[in-house]
C-alpha cells in the first residue's frame, strides 16, 4: 500500500523521517518495501500482510504509526457530519448473505478534472486520475479503505439499484472494455433490467461516468470476502476494490465513506448532494469481545508486558479494553477482521510492546527424543558408499518432461501434474535416471570427459512414493594418470558399484539378464535380492543418450536401485564378529571351456552346489575368447578357496571336492577342463 507521508501526517503528527518510520514499522509488523520522493513529498510503500485489510488505507497505516510512536490519531479530513439517509434511493438487496450493507446517495454533478492536489495524491498511490467523480471514489478508498463506485444515474433503468445474482448467460462490458459472461454464482449490481456492475470487483461500461453525466449514484457497500474472492478468481480480475473486499472490509464504514465522499464533492466544487440517500443494512455488525488473560500474555510470549502498556497499545489501536480481575475484556474495532481469539490480542500487545524485548530462553527437554526417520541414516550409508566409489552427488527437479519419463514408466501410468509450469515439468519422475542422465549430459557438453554422478531421491508412481539411488558413469574407469593403464568404464565396473552399494547393507544380490527399453540389450542386468528384482543396471541405449544431447560416441553405464527394498533385505540380526581362522586355507584354480552364452552366475551356482561347505570363496579371475578357443566357447578361470574353521584340510579331501566340482561342470554345463 502506497501512502504519501503528507497524507499520513494529516492523521498523525509524527516528526520522524520516512526512513526512521520505515525502520520502526518493520519491527511493528508493517514493513516498508520502498520509498520514493515526489517533489517535497515522500511516498511510503508498505507491505501489508493478507490478514490486515484495514492497513490498505492511509488511516489504517497512520493508526499503526500513531501506536508505534505513542501519538494520538487525528480524524484529519475525515471529520465530517454523519450521513443522514432519508431512504429515497430505491435499493434492493436480494442476497443479504453476500451483500450485508449497501449505502447509496444521489448527487448532481458537473464532470471535469479533479483538483491538482487530489490528482497528485492518487498518482502517488498508483491510481490514475480520471474525472472528479471517479477520483473522489478512489480518494475515499485510499484514505479510509472503503471501496466506492459511482453510477451515471441516467443510465440506470428506472433509477433502481438491485443487488442480485447474475442470471445464467448474462453478460456485460466492464470498465476495462472487456465483455464478460457471468455465471449464476456471481453477484451483480443491476438496474431494473441489466447488470451494471460486478459487485465489489469492477463497474460496467454502460453506466460509466462520462463528460455528459449530470446525476450520479454513489455506492459504498460491504461484500462477503469469499464471494469476491471466487468471482475475482473466476474472471481473472483483480482490482483495488476486490483486493480489499476479499480480505474483509469494515461493515460499519460505508456511511462514513459516503459522508466523506459527499463532503469532498462539495469541497472540490464537483457537485452537490441531493439529500437522497439510503442505507440498506440487513444484518448489522455485532462487536466481538474477547477476554485477554494477563497470565496468558507471559505464558505465550515469555516476556512481561506491563498492564499500562497493554491498555495503551490496545486503546491506541482503537480496541476497547475493560480491566477485569485477571486481565481485560477487549472489544475489537469493526475493521479488525483478523481478531478471532485471545492469541490475536496477544500478538497486538506483543508486536507493539516490541519483540526486541523478548528474552532469549531455551525450551527444556521433557523426554528422550523419539527416533528419526530411519531413511535419513539409511540414505546416508548409500551416499557414503557412492561417494567412496568416486561418484559425485546430484540433485535434480522431481518433475520432468513427459517424454523424458516415458522410457522409465514400465507400463505404469505417469503421475502427471495438472498445472505444470512448463512442458519441461509435466510429470513426476518414475525414475532417478532421467535426472542423472541430464546431469551427465550437462557435464559432457561442458567439456568433462569423465563423469560419475548419483542421486538419491523419491520416485513417483500411482502406487505412491519409493526412495531410490540412481547413478551413471561415463568415460574412464581408471584414474587419468601416466602411472597406470587407461581403460574405459564397462559393464563390470557398474556391477561392482551395485555390489558395493548392496554390501553397505550386508546384502549380496544376484544378477539376471533382463530387458529395458532404455538399456542396451545383452548389457542389462536385473539386481535380484531374495528372488525380488530391486533394481537394474547396464549400458544406456544410444537413443536415450541422443535424446538427452549426449555425444553419440559416449558409452554410458547407468543403474538404479530401490533403497527401500534394499534396506528391507538387510539382515535384521545384529552383526556378530567372527574369530579369525585358526587353520590355513587351500587355493585351487580351475580353467574350463563353456558355451559363451552361459552366465557367470550359472557357472558359479553349479560350482557352489557341487562343493562342500569348506568352499568359502569363488573368484572368476580370467576370461578369454579368441585364438585357440573354438567359436561359441569361452575360457573361464576360477580361483577356489577352501577352508575349515575346525581343522587343517587335507590335500585328498580338497582334491575330491575339486573332482566333484569338475564332474558337475562337465555333466551339467558340458564344460571341458583346459
Amino acid at each position: 500500500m502506497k501512502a504519501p507521508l503528507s497524507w499520513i501526517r494529516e492523521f498523525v503528527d509524527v516528526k520522524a523521517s520516512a526512513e526512521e518510520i520505515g525502520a520502526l514499522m518493520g519491527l511493528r509488523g508493517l514493513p516498508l518495501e520502498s520509498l520514493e520522493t515526489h517533489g517535497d513529498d515522500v511516498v511510503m510503500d508498505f507491505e501489508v500482510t493478507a490478514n490486515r485489510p484495514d492497513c490498505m488505507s492511509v488511516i489504517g497505516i497512520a493508526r499503526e504509526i500513531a501506536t508505534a510512536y505513542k501519538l494520538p490519531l487525528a480524524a484529519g479530513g475525515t471529520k465530517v457530519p454523519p450521513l443522514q439517509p432519508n431512504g429515497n434511493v430505491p435499493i434492493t438487496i436480494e442476497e443479504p448473505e453476500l451483500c450485508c450493507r449497501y449505502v447509496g446517495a444521489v448527487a448532481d454533478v458537473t464532470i471535469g478534472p479533479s483538483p491538482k492536489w487530489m490528482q497528485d495524491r492518487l498518482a502517488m498511490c498508483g491510481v490514475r486520475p480520471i474525472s472528479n467523480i471517479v477520483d473522489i471514489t478512489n480518494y475515499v478508498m485510499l484514505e479510509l479503505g472503503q471501496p466506492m463506485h459511482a453510477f451515471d444515474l441516467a443510465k440506470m433503468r428506472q433509477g433502481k439499484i438491485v443487488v442480485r445474482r447474475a442470471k445464467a448467460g448474462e453478460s456485460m462490458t466492464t470498465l476495462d472494455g472487456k465483455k464478460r459472461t457471468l455465471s449464476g454464482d456471481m453477484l451483480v449490481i443491476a438496474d431494473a433490467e441489466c447488470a451494471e456492475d460486478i459487485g465489489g470487483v469492477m463497474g460496467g461500461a454502460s453506466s460509466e461516468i462520462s463528460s455528459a453525466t449530470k446525476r450520479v449514484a454513489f455506492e459504498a457497500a460491504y461484500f462477503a470476502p469469499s464471494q469476491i474472492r471466487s468471482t475475482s478468481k473466476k474472471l481473472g480480475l483483480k482490482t483495488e476494490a476486490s483486493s480489499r473486499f476479499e480480505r474483509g472490509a469494515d461493515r460499519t464504514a460505508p456511511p462514513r465513506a459516503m459522508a466523506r465522499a459527499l463532503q469532498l464533492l462539495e469541497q472540490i466544487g464537483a457537485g452537490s448532494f441531493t439529500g437522497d440517500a439510503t442505507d440498506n443494512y440487513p444484518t448489522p455488525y455485532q462487536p466481538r469481545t474477547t477476554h485477554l488473560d494477563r497470565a496468558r500474555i507471559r505464558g505465550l510470549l515469555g516476556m512481561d508486558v506491563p498492564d499500562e502498556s497493554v491498555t495503551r497499545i490496545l486503546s491506541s489501536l482503537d480496541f476497547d479494553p475493560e480491566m477485569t480481575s485477571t486481565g481485560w475484556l477487549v472489544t475489537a474495532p469493526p475493521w479488525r477482521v483478523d481478531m478471532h481469539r485471545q492469541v490475536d490480542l496477544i500478538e497486538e500487545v506483543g508486536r507493539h510492546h516490541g519483540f526486541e524485548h523478548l528474552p532469549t530462553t531455551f525450551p527444556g527437554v521433557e523426554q528422550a527424543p523419539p527416533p528419526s526417520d530411519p531413511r535419513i541414516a539409511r540414505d546416508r550409508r548409500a551416499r557414503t558408499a557412492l561417494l567412496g566409489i568416486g561418484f559425485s552427488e546430484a540433485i535434480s527437479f522431481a518433475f520432468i518432461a513427459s517424454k523424458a519419463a516415458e522410457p522409465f514408466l514400465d507400463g505404469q501410468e505417469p503421475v502427471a501434474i495438472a498445472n505444470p509450469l512448463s512442458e519441461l515439468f509435466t510429470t513426476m519422475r518414475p525414475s532417478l535416471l532421467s535426472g542423472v542422465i541430464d546431469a551427465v549430459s550437462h557435464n559432457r557438453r561442458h567439456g568433462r570427459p569423465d563423469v560419475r554422478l548419483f542421486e538419491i531421491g523419491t520416485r513417483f508412481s500411482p502406487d505412491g512414493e519409493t526412495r531410490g539411488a540412481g547413478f551413471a558413469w561415463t568415460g574412464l574407469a581408471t584414474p587419468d594418470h601416466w602411472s597406470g593403464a587407461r581403460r574405459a568404464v564397462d559393464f563390470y565396473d557398474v556391477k561392482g558399484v551395485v555390489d558395493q552399494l548392496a554390501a553397505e547393507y550386508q546384502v549380496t544380490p544376484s544378477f539376471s539378464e533382463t530387458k529395458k527399453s532404455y538399456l542396451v540389450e545383452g548389457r542389462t542386468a536385473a539386481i535380484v535380492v531374495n528372488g525380488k528384482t530391486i533394481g537394474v543396471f547396464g549400458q544406456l541405449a544410444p537413443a536415450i543418450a541422443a535424446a538427452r544431447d549426449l555425444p553419440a560416441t559416449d558409452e554410458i553405464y547407468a543403474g538404479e536401485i530401490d533403497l527401500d527394498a534394499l534396506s528391507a533385505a538387510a539382515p535384521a540380526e545384529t552383526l556378530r564378529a567372527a574369530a579369525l581362522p585358526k587353520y590355513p586355507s587351500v587355493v585351487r584354480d580351475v580353467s574350463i571351456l563353456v558355451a559363451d552364452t552361459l552366465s557367470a552366475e550359472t557357472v558359479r551356482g553349479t560350482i557352489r552346489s557341487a562343493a562342500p561347505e569348506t568352499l568359502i570363496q569363488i573368484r572368476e579371475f580370467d576370461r578369454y575368447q579368441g585364438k585357440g578357443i573354438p567359436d561359441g566357447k569361452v575360457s573361464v578361470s576360477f580361483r577356489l578357496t577352501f577352508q575349515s574353521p575346525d581343522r587343517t584340510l587335507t590335500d585328498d579331501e580338497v582334491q575330491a571336492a575339486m573332482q566333484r566340482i569338475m564332474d558337475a561342470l562337465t555333466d551339467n554345463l558340458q564344460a571341458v577342463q583346459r
Partner: protein
Amino acid sequence: MPQLGYRHPLSLIRDEVIEIFTRLGYQVLEGPEIEDDYHNFEALNMPADHPARDMHDTLYLEKPIKSAGRPLTLLRTHTSAMQIRHMENNPPPVRLVAIGPVYRRDNLDLTHTPMFHQVEGLVVGKGITLADLKGTVSAMARELFGSAEVRFRPSFFPYTEPSAEVDIRCFKCAGAGCALCKKSGWIEILGSGMVHPAVFEAVGYNPDEVTGFAFGMGVERVAQLKWGVGDIRLFYENDLRFLEQFGI
C-alpha cells in the same frame, strides 16, 4: 590414485541442520512429498477460500493418488504437512524438524525454483514461549552462520499467532552494512511463530494445555547466503565445476 566423489552443497547443509537439531534433542522426519489438501492447508488454518493460499501457488496432480485416508492431490508446498501428520499420531510433547523437498508454482529466477528444500522445526509442550523460539533460532544461527544475534519482526502466517520473520545480524559485515545484507546489517533467514490454536484443535491437542513454536527455512537460501551462491539454479544444474567447490 583413487578419487572420492563430491557432496552436493544442499546435502551438506541438510546434514549440518540435521546434526544441529539432533544435538538439541529433536527427532528428524521426512514425510511424503505428495499430500492431500487437508494436511497441506486445511489443518494449518487455511480453509479453501483463505487469501493466504495465494502465498503458496500450488502444483496439483492430474489424477489423485489413492491413499488409505484422503486422496493425495497436490505436491506439498511446505513440510508443515508432515508436522500435522506427526501430531495426529503422537501426543505432546513434540520436538521435531521436518526436512525435504517442497514444490511451488514459481518460475525459475535467481532466487526461485519450483522445487526447493525446506527445514521446519516444531516444539510443543507445556509452557513453550516465543522467547524459547528466540533462544532456539539463535542457537541454530550461531551454528550455521556463526552469528547468534537475532531480530524478530512481526509478520503473518495463518498457522502461527503471533508470527515473526527472523533476521540474523549480518555475519559478513557484523551489522555495518554490506552488499550481502543490502546495507541493512540484517539478513532474513526464516519465518516462525507460535503454533495457532486452530492447528492444535485440528490435530486433537488442547490449546489451553500446550503451546508450541514452529519455524521454517529454505535450505537453498542458507546455502546461498553461507557460500555466496548468487544464482539458485546452480544447485539444480549439477555442474561438476560447481559441485567440486564444496568439499567432500
